[in-house]
């Protein structure tokens, strides 16, 4: 088993844990935590292929990870702002209770 395989398995495990969290939890913030884990697993995959894979161009992986981190930060900020706005209106963050389209 090579180091690349190990890292890929780790990334896959992290992605699946995040997926399970996003599917099972009912609190909006905890779903967001699951999504963050999935995004980070993807970052790990980019770096693994950069480190151990064939490289058409050096630094493709790190550049991709940098953009991904920036976009994930924006996503987290907007997502949490939405959750806070929803909480202010419905007084809940449980996803099943936020079912009305007209507030």
């Amino acid at each position, binding site marked *: 088993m090579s180091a690349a395989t190990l890292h890929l398995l780790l990334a896959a495990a992290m992605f*699946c844990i995040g997926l399970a969290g996003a599917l099972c939890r009912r609190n909006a913030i905890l779903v967001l935590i699951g999504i*963050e884990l999935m995004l980070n697993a993807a*970052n790990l995959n980019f*770096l693994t292929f950069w*480190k151990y894979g064939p*490289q058409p161009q050096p630094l493709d992986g790190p550049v991709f990870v940098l953009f991904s981190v920036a976009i994930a*930060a924006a996503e987290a900020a907007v997502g949490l702002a939405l959750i*806070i706005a929803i909480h202010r209106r419905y*007084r809940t963050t449980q996803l099943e209770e936020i079912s009305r389209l007209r507030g």
Partner: protein
Amino acid sequence: MPPEPVLSLAFAIVAGLVLGGSVAAVSCRNRVHAGLFLAVALVGLALVFLRMGAEFLGFIQILVYVGAVAVLIVFAILLTRGSDSAHERRSNAPGIGIGLAVLLWGVLAWGILHRSPGAIATPSPPPSMAVRDLGERLLREELLPLQTVGLLLTAALIGAALIALPEPGISPRPSGSHGSAGTETPPSSPT
């Protein structure tokens, strides 16, 4: 430098940190603990990056995820508490989600272990990452994506501030209507 063994103790510890933190982050009943375990998992991932020689990205990972995203998440957990009890109920059918995830991991692992051997060949010179090269790359070839990301971040900043701003006309619904108000009275938030 002698070639390090594939499954070293350091990798096992770091991987354990990542996996343990992730599992705890998605399974903890206490929401604040979940946020803190997310930080643990992301620190572990940064350590994985450091072990792969991506020093810059490992530090960026901690700076952005632990310093900003994890703090934002626990802050949001604090701001939205009080409506529903701190310990949330379990999902109705957690088995489906967990089963799907395990199934997916099985498929992925099968694919990773049975891929064609030539697909990943370790390049002869191990890649290194000079920060200067990364900067040159970002500011020359990737200039347009970089500007776009800057625009996106600005839009996200303004958008997040606008969304989270209290709307003047709407009064919040009384908290008793959902029947799950916490027993403890939360302190008023300073915002």
